[in-house]
């Protein structure tokens, strides 16, 4: 258990810089999630913390001790990989105890720690099986067990659930959350799945192109995204972005007034979450239904506005629309996110009413 500090981290592969100066403080016992599209540098960052990639510039400290010059085994970390990376020729017990055996831990202690981990993860009945005789979920549990056994200061997870099917992924997500509550360890978790990020994280770090776009709790990111990238990444279905004009202080879409700004700024982008749209005859957003998706408990309505912009609304599952039908949607001004054309957030005047 320890804090993790990254300061001024840069990473280049040859002439290409993939991480451009990253600073982050992870508190003791915090579960922090790196999220971003593939190729954004989040896995590279994790591999640098693990010591599998060299840091080009900057300092990594774990528990106040500088570690970026140490080999992986001496950093006090353990890592769980996407492909599980179990040793195929060793059984579960052998996989769990391998690192300890190499570190010269006495056999009695190895047994004790392996058994404790097996108990936490309910692996006891599987101890003598080889990895190929296990299901995907069981393999992932062994991989996590291998990390637990080492009693690391910091756990690193590299997209550990990506290879599991949807149902198992939800189950394992809860397992990891329980594990975090039980062990109280510092954890760094990399994923490209925003649902995983939202449900697991104490704080989320959103990456884009080797840079941190925003750091915050899931709700901070959901409520106050600093730019269109974060806004579009967090939340599902993704936020709608509409081109809007200003008329004085009034923000308008296709002539309809939506909310007010303190200062006029010309052309704007308006971010509206699908779940904040409601069906309302007096609403400002009138359009034609182009696609209607039924999900049982809820439904997604794709609406085309008169100026050819489309938006998705998440509505009640009892509703039914036919393509071509008229549909009028309303949004509270307080739930509108206003961005300038570069994608940066502008704080709207939330007191105005539609």
């Amino acid at each position, binding site marked *: 258990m320890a804090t993790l500090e990254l300061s001024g981290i840069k990473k280049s592969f040859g002439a290409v810089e993939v991480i451009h100066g990253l600073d982050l403080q992870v508190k003791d016992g915090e579960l922090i999630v790196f999220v971003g599209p593939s190729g954004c540098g989040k896995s590279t960052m994790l*591999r640098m913390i693990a010591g599998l990639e060299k840091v080009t510039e900057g300092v990594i400290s774990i528990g106040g001790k500088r570690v970026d010059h140490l*080999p992986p085994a001496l950093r006090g970390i353990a890592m769980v990989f996407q492909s599980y*990376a*179990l040793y195929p020729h060793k059984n579960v017990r052998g996989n769990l105890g391998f690192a300890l055996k190499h570190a010269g831990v006495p056999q009695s202690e190895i047994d004790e720690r392996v058994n404790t981990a097996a108990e936490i993860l309910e692996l006891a009945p599987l101890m003598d099986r080889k990895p190929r005789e*296990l299901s995907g979920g069981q393999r992932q549990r062994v991989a996590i067990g*291998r990390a637990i056994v080492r009693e690391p200061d910091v756990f690193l997870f590299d997209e550990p659930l990506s290879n599991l099917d949807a149902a198992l992924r939800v189950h394992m997500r809860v397992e990891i959350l329980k594990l975090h509550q039980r062990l109280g360890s510092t954890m760094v978790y990399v994923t490209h799945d925003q649902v995983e990020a939202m449900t697991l994280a104490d704080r989320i770090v959103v990456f884009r192109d080797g840079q941190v776009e925003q750091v915050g709790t899931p709700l901070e990111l959901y409520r106050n995204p600093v730019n269109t990238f974060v806004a579009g990444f967090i939340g599902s279905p993704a936020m709608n972005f509409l081109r809007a004009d200003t008329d004085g202080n009034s923000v308008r879409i296709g002539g309809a007034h939506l909310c007010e700004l303190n200062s006029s700024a010309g052309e704007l982008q308006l971010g509206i979450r699908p779940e904040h749209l409601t069906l309302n005859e007096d609403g400002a957003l009138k359009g034609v239904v182009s696609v209607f998706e039924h999900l049982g408990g809820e439904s997604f309505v794709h609406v085309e506005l008169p100026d050819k912009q489309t938006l998705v609304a998440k509505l009640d599952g009892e509703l039914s629309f036919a393509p071509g039908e008229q549909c009028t949607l309303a949004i509270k001004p307080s739930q509108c996110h206003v961005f300038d054309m570069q994608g940066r957030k502008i704080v709207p005047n939330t007191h105005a009413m539609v």
Partner: protein
Amino acid sequence: MLVRERITSTGIHAVLIAYSLLALFPLALIVINSLKSKKAIFRDPVGLPVGEAFSWKGYASVLTNSDFPLYFGNSLIVTCVSLFLILLFGAMASHALSEYRFPGDTFLGLYLILGIMVPIRLGTVALLQLVVDLNLANTLTALILVYTAQGLPIAIFIFTEFLKSVSREIKDSARIDGLSEYRIFFEVVVPLVRPVIATVAVFSMIPIWNDLWFPLILSPGEETRTVTLGVQQFIGQYTVNWGAVLASLSVAILPVLIMYVIFSKQLIRGITSGAVKG
């Protein structure tokens, strides 16, 4: 549909059986005739060794009247040691080429594989000079060194392809577990590629065991003859002891056969299953 499948299956088997017969015929001929008297060999070359035709004479002269066990031992030593060195150095070199990035790695990889295209026998004269200069003429060491060099390019070629496919995450995970690079190779990578090692072993073993050229040139001495060279003693200028020649060839097939059986178990078994998501 079912009938069609059966016809296809029968056809495939017919072709395979025909090919097997063709390939096994000379072998069968050797074994059959090794059990016959000299007269019987010439009277009826394809006849079975029964009744009057049957004779142990060939085997008797091989096992008693010659240094055959010595030659056999020489062949075994040369083959096993060369094989061990080819597998060890081949796998290690390929691991380095596939795992590490260093200046000149592509060039080195190409250089090592280039050997496939250069027949080593072209360099016989230079090799002989070198062996003599090193005082290695008429030693098994000379043969072992030459065979190792001869076997490495193809071994590296096959190994590199397969080692590239070994999951990077398993090696990384071993690194995090604190294994040194050597232990990662021996304890994680080698067990993963056992089937490939078996394949390379079979590929490399047979040319070495069967080679006549280098034993003849580099170590034709009485003490260092290999089986293939030893067989020549039954081929005289005026008479050939066919029974003995065929008997020694039959015996010489055995070790290769045994090694093949050992390795083929590995060839069939894919051990990586379950290690990573397939």
